[in-house]
């Protein structure tokens, strides 16, 4: 019997619900709601105006359609746009954090203390839109590094926010970016001053908690000239029946000679075996590189019912470098349409794209990538490798590489492969004493190695575990 046919699936391990009394906006979306959010956040007038402008743009836009993604469009008037866990008081140490919340993190396997102690990770935790705790903030402050919630940044560093917010992803960039610009409630802000090498990985855990709340994170990372930062973003959401919307915007600014490494592990609830529920993940992520700057996006995407996401690099400065390393796993009825855009504008700009798709069950995975070489981009180079690994016969994978070259000196290479986990590979592993589940994990991890190697150590281990969990039972 073909063992690849015996498709079952394990239950989502992170399905639990934390009971924190929340402070919610009324359901629906209009200018008053935006004023409510802005007031809640104690924002300055210019920020409110910016939001309202985005909202008015959004009203004129239509939701995009994608060929290989099918989902029921959310009713944007049915969503609550602001929900904050009520803090009992201002929090200075972890002891004061809501014990319910800490339990949640424990279940997720994230021990903040452990992380602080073992790896020196500064964690900015976002639960349903409000940053609960920023650790290591003071230590970083000594070096002039700012790492805080975007709301704090709007209040405390308005010049920086005003200067860069919306410069990489304009507020009317696309339907979801416009919506995010209008209603974003939290997210992280990070500024690394000139010549400073951030001594630790900056990390944020996002998590959607309240039923029926959409989450609109806004992240802005600015690496000033000659600086370096590695930023980690991890996401998990508890089990929910109705679909939840997540429309985040991430903007990265790498000034001359700066480097930003941005890593994501996304494990939101993918829906159940029948395709019920799950998070809609529509994210706009983009970075801009000035001269000699470098941006690397690394992502491990295992969750969400629908993912639509193309972390991109605008290689504006000469000699700038863009990299995209991605593992996208889909199982059961999940759909992922992900990839990258590398826009080469400057001379001698280089980009590398390594995309590894894994499809199991009845899922659909697409890679969609654009490599654009502008007329001024002398000697631009791109290398793309897009591989798909199929498990079983009911899933589908698609590759859509778009290439636009306006400069004759450019060199663009594209390689693509599709393979299946072979019965021969499984039998070989079994014969050596490795059971099928473990064999799949081993083979999949091997397949993703080039991407996982890009992740910081502690994240790589977590990512490997996630891959195993999300593919558990996909071959029996």
């Amino acid at each position, binding site marked *: *019997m073909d*063992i690849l046919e015996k498709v079952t699936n394990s239950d989502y391990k992170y399905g639990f619900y934390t009971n924190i009394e929340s402070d919610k906006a009324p359901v629906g979306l209009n200018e008053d709601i935006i004023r409510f959010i802005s007031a809640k956040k104690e924002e300055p007038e210019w920020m409110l105006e910016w939001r309202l402008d985005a909202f008015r743009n959004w009203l004129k836009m239509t939701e995009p359609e994608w060929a290989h993604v099918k989902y029921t469009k959310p009713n944007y008037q049915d969503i609550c746009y602001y929900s904050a866990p009520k803090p009992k008081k201002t929090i200075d140490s972890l002891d004061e954090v809501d014990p319910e919340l800490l339990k949640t993190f424990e279940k997720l396997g994230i021990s903040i203390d452990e992380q602080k102690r073992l790896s020196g990770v500064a964690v900015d935790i976002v639960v349903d839109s409000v940053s609960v705790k920023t650790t290591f903030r003071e230590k970083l402050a000594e070096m002039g590094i700012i790492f805080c919630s975007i709301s704090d940044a709007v209040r405390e560093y308005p010049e920086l926010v005003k200067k860069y917010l919306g410069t990489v992803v304009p507020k009317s960039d696309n339907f979801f970016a416009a919506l995010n610009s209008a209603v974003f409630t939290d997210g992280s802000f990070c500024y690394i001053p000139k010549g400073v090498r951030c001594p630790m990985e900056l990390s944020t855990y996002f998590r959607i908690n309240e039923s029926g709340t959409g989450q609109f994170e806004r992240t802005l990372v600015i690496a000033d000239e000659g600086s370096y930062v590695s930023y980690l973003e991890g996401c998990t959401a508890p089990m929910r029946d109705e679909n939840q919307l997540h429309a985040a915007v991430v903007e990265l600014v790498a000034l001359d000679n700066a480097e930003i490494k941005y890593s994501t592990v996304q494990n939101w609830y993918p829906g159940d075996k029948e395709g019920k529920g799950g998070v809609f993940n529509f994210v706009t992520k983009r970075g801009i590189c000035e001269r000699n700057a470098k941006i690397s996006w690394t992502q491990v995407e295992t969750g969400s019912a629908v993912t639509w996401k193309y972390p991109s690099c605008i290689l504006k400065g000469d000699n700038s470098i863009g990299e995209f390393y991605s593992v996208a796993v889909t199982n059961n009825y999940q759909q992922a349409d992900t990839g990258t855009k590398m826009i080469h504008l400057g001379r001698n700009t280089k980009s590398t794209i390594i995309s590894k798709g894994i499809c199991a069950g009845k899922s659909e995975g697409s890679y969609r990538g654009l490599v654009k070489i502008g007329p001024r981009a002398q000697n631009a180079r791109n290398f793309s490798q897009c591989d798909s690994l199929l498990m079983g016969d009911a899933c589908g994978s698609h590759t859509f590489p778009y290439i636009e070259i306006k400069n004759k000196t450019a060199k663009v290479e594209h390689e693509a492969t599709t393979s299946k986990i*072979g*019965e*021969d*590979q499984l*039998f*070989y*592993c*079994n*014969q*050596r*004493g*490795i*059971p*099928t589940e*473990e064999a799949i994990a*081993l*083979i999949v*991890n*091997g*397949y*993703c*190695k*080039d991407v996982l190697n890009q992740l910081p150590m502690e994240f790589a281990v977590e990512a490997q575990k996630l891959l195993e969990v999300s593919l558990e039972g996909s071959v029996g």
Partner: protein
Amino acid sequence: MLKIKNLHASIDGNDILRGINLEVKPGEVHAIMGPNGSGKSTLSAVIAGREDYEITEGSIEFAGEDIMELSPEERSHMGLFLSFQYPVEIPGVSVTNFLKTAINESRKGRGQEPMPAKDMLKKMREVMAVLEMDKSFMSRSINEGFSGGEKKRNEIFQMAMLEPKLAILDETDSGLDIDALRIVSNGVNKLRSEKNAFIVITHYQRLLDYIVPDFVHVLHKGKIIKSGGKELALELESKGYDWLKQEATV
């Protein structure tokens, strides 16, 4: 150690094994020879528990236990090892990582603690020295881009690390150069003891000069048509299979 009685197996409705009887006792080395397509690899795959084959008749006992219902990994945990005629490539999985997983899963299967990393590395180094393997192998993806001979040597390396009770070597000699044949055979001989046994599948007497068998069997069309001592291999080397095939059809 291994008792096979009247074993019949088929794949996609084709009968491949048609009544095999074979008994292997601890300390013995059995050689199985026979023309291409006679069912040698099929027999080893069926013993190892490959699910693609349907066993239509007969029984297999290993270490005193009926193993017909056991999964390949359970058989492996009991101490069964198969050196593949065509070892499989697993991209991105290093030899070290693969072996570590194999050893620890086997130990887990037997209710033992994982092997401490230090001990494992030490053992790997020792075995590699015996097999004259270069250190660089450890970090390469398993079998990916390995030459034919390197793949075979790597199979024996894994065997030596896993210390099986019964090892089936399916044409381990093919692809090995003259020196490699000697080195690999030497590695196998070092493992021979009163407690374990080997089934060596080969087309050539050459290997049996190094790994001297106690018994030689000739497989033809899914049946053992002749068994004898080590001199049978020499006879086959000079006479070929035709005289046996004729004898068998009579």
